């Protein structure tokens, strides 16, 4: 009786998880094991036995490891790592200043400014970067006007533009968890460190950083994962050679009509993300911290 009661209570959870997570996942997996039809869709499998034994069902995965696609995978990974590193490098000082240096009455306003971009669609904000970065855009006009450069910089439609867009878009997701953990930081620990002889730099590395490690980890996860699957920024700001994994997947579904291949790529991306999340959860468990995500 009790058992059945528990089951009933968990039912909605299972339903939601099943409908919005498990079923799509299984569908994606099944799709990824098939082959495309001439105009798209999936080709019928005449002989299932032969299809399985010949290894054809892994064809899409095999193809995904071909040089050209693996190259995109590496580039996406590299871009995501770089985005994460840059957002951390920019976000940490900002979060630090917000949490520990800003006067109390300014704090809410400053924190609000970090969140304000969320009021506008990410897409529109990325479009705004197009107008800033284009050949005759605001940045170039400013640089030309001040004489800083004598010919316009080609920023838009380069990997640099993608990087700018990614870092810009992901920055709040780095700042917020960092702020939360820096805010929680017991300031007397910094005083204790100072009292024991640590200068500002030493105290930062030996006390502040280790104690805000959970925030750093959360920020890394929150930034790295979306960056890895990002396709809007690279599509709008990227040029001929800025294709990322996200674009490749989107392309397979929207234009190239190779849904099975797209599904295989999406599945690989998900697996990579899942591994990262597991590593994160393991790390937090070991630290005895609550897993935030």
């Amino acid at each position: 009786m009790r058992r059945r009661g528990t089951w009933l209570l968990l039912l909605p959870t299972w339903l939601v998880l099943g409908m919005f997570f498990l079923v799509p996942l299984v569908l994606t997996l099944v799709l990824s094991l098939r082959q495309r039809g001439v105009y798209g869709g999936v080709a019928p499998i005449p002989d299932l036995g032969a299809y399985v034994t010949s290894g054809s069902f892994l064809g899409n995965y095999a193809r995904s490891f071909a040089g050209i696609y693996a190259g995109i995978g590496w580039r996406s990974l590299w871009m995501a790592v770089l985005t994460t590193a840059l957002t951390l490098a920019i976000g940490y000082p900002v979060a630090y200043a917000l949490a520990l240096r800003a006067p109390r009455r300014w704090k809410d306003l400053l924190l609000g400014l970090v969140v304000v971009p969320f009021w506008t669609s990410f897409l529109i904000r990325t479009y705004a970067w197009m107008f800033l970065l284009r050949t005759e855009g605001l940045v170039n006009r400013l640089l030309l006007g001040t004489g800083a450069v004598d010919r316009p910089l080609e920023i838009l439609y380069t990997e640099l533009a993608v990087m700018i867009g990614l870092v810009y878009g992901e920055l709040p997701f780095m700042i917020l968890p960092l702020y939360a953990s820096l805010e929680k930081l017991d300031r007397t620990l910094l005083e204790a460190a100072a009292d024991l002889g640590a200068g500002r730099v030493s105290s930062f590395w030996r006390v502040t950083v280790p104690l805000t490690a959970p925030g750093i980890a959360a920020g890394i996860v929150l930034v790295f994962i979306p960056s890895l699957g990002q396709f809007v920024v690279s599509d709008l700001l990227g040029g001929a050679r800025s294709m990322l994994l996200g674009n490749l997947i989107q392309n397979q579904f929207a234009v190239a009509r190779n849904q099975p291949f797209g599904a295989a790529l999406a599945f690989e991306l998900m697996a990579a993300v899942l591994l990262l999340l597991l590593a994160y959860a393991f790390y937090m468990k070991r630290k005895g911290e609550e897993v935030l995500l």
Partner: protein
Amino acid sequence: MPLSVEIRRVTKRFSDVAAVNEVSLDIRRGELFALLGPSGCGKTTLLRMVGGLETPSAGTIHIEGIDVTEVPPHLRPAHMVFQQYALFPHLTVADNVAFGLRYKNGGRAGWSTKVKEALDLVRLAGMEKRLPHQLSGGQRQRVALARALVLEPKVLLLDEPLAALDPQLREEVQVELKHLQRTLGISFLFVTHDREEALGMSDRVAVMRHGRVEQVGTPAEIFERPATRFTAEFLGATSFFTAEVASLVDGVATLRLPAGLDLQVPRPDASLRPGDRIDFVVRPEKLRVRVERPAEAEMAVVPVTVEESIYQGMGTTWIVRGPAGERFVAWEQNAASVLDEPSALRPGGAAFLCWHPRHTVVLGGGGDA
């Protein structure tokens, strides 16, 4: 006697408020010195200025004869034990204790010996690998002590060292801290709002109020001879009297109470002049409440009405009203069981409040509370 810490006219202002106002204090070498006062009296700010965590707005601080007013905390021969200990939660006991060693001269080589010695000193041998959250409150405090002491300070600063401990532990830790201080022979400067703690632990006490030092003295001095009404009250005295100096003869002052009673007080304040209006206080445990007027001629006696008695086991507190409705409090030890010798006093009944004149403490200025 050589001085460990000299505080000279130190003022600390936060925006417009002076948290510490022109304080001067001398702390001798090897002394256990308490800064006592209610919260907001400036005692913690003063301690933090000695530690270098705050910079004085004015005045100077010398430690061991060296002006450290502008010296950063880690370059002062003074280290702090924080109220909540401020142990680094991500470091083991040993790493916490070793934290400051790398900033000291001398190589890594001596670290482990020093850490071991410090942990032995606070009886934490074998706890090296524990993390702070695996320790009890008392153990954490001892780690904090070891972490400061391993740096061999000349002055150890302690912010409310007993406040975070369970009440039953406090007495034990008091003894331990005193013992430690005697062993090391360095001076301890600590902050407390608890008078028992200040009296029980320190060699000398500075009572602070509104950023100023109200009185400095040995525990007995500040307890028995409070200079001001504030100090008296803070140390638990509540019976205040006003009187006029009727005469001064041969070191004996005759004080006249409003009710027309005279009492003879030996060793009066040198500054007293006949005709002065003065305040004096008598500590509760020096006061007696009697149904009969006491026979001894020299006893000071004030007729009162009993308002309330509070039985507290070890003693009984009597709240009585004087002729003009003044409120006095007496505390009497229950030397005999009240079951064997029940008191004859009843609330509402008339009685006599009496004390030996030598317990009369004439208060000085600043007693405006």
